[in-house]
């Protein structure tokens, strides 16, 4: 799981990967009841709290390694941006980095 991605992923593949990370963070049984889309926001729709967002970001970081400065990108966000952060924003960012 921690292998560094070597080929470029398309947006659907990134979406699937991020969904897997979310499942790992919040637990499979909860994800079953959720409608996770690219429009889902982390705080409102997925109801993730600070520490869950931090562990999600660690998973992204360990997967993509130095190819994607995800933590740096996230650190640059202020509170409002973080509150409104959607899954699609992350997909776009990862696509740009590849």
């Amino acid at each position, binding site marked *: 799981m921690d292998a560094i991605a070597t080929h470029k992923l398309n947006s659907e593949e990134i979406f699937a990967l991020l969904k897997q990370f979310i499942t790992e963070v*919040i637990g499979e049984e*909860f994800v079953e009841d959720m409608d996770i889309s690219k429009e889902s926001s982390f*705080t*409102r729709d997925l*109801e*993730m*709290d*600070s*520490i*869950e*967002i*931090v562990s999600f970001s660690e998973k992204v970081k360990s997967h993509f390694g130095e190819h994607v400065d995800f933590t740096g990108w*996230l*650190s*640059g*966000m*202020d*509170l*409002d*941006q*973080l*509150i409104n952060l959607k899954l699609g924003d992350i997909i776009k960012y990862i696509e740009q980095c590849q």
Partner: protein
Amino acid sequence: MARFAFIVPPLHGHVNPTLSLGAELLTRGHEVGWITLDPSLGNRLPAGGQLLLAEYDQDSEAYLDQITKKNVSGIESIKFLYEEVLIPLNRFMYEGINTLLDRFKPDVVINDHQLFTGAIAAYNRHMPYATSVTAPAAIKMVEDLPGVHDWEVKQIVGLQQELGVPGNDAIVLSEKLTLVYTSKDFFGYMDTPDHYKFIGPVFNNRHTPPPFNWEKLSQMGTDPRILVSIGTTFDHAYKKEFFSKVIDAFANEAVTVIVVSDEDLFEHWPSNFIVQSRVPQLDLLPHLDGVVCHGGHNTVCETLSHGLPLVVIPIAYDQSHVAGQVTQAESGVRLNFKRFKAPHLREAVWEILRNPVYKQAAQRIQDSFERSGGAATAADLLEDLAPVIPPYGMTMSQAFYRNKVY
């Protein structure tokens, strides 16, 4: 002998540790006052402590409990906390703090880390000040979510500039002495400056505890006993939803459940429940096997200081970070407040009760707390900040400048 002034917000968790620190200073013969908006604090002060009530023309009632007025959760709660609670409260209290500092003339000011204007007023007067960090997980924000930390600093610096402190650095955590009420072991690894002193949690065990139905507890038999509490800052709707899950989880289970809640929240509570709106928590803990709570720093630390495991269900503010510390230390299990259902709570409680690793970890944290020094160490550090009586004809102002801190 020196004179110390604590400046506290109207929040129990932030006031309680200062009561023990103040009591220690009073027994050493110092003069100690508490600057507050809350007149009821007068009843809780240690003997000899002075209530320095900040009074205003404008009604200050609104500022006393506004944190309970709105249901907030997650990261959004940080925005609410700063924009709707802390900044207005600080702005409101500033004038009163100034007046009281000029009247009481303390040698050392101790501001709560969220009462920014306490530090600002001391700074503007060139008075030595220390900072009391009653919610240490807040410091972790800089590491966990640096963007959020920067946003917080921006709010604080904005207020500082408005009140005459130039520059873009926050001065609200004293660079001379920042008292952090936890141990490094529980706080978790993070580089912190030398003036951050981890003195361990400090509890207020000198007040008269509320009554408790001990007889009923003793009649409950030998089933494991847990305490369930989500603190004082969440309102009715949250409590109703939360405790209905607690009832579903533990009705008919072989466990005795002590619930901190208004009894009339529900018409019927299961027979294995004891429900009281206030409990003598510190007296109860030695008789318990585990605690379920919202991840408030005080309840978590009181539980760990008795070597008991936890189920933490953080709701808002720094609680998610406190819960992170609990699981990092392996002293408990965390659940998500919005998502958990009764069976998850039941499973989590049996897990911490049956699997000994949680209790063992809690006992390790308990040891680390006991090694941290507590109120006596804090009082030593605070005494070091007080200007010394000038020896050998040195003038008082020379002595002051030698110890000057701002």
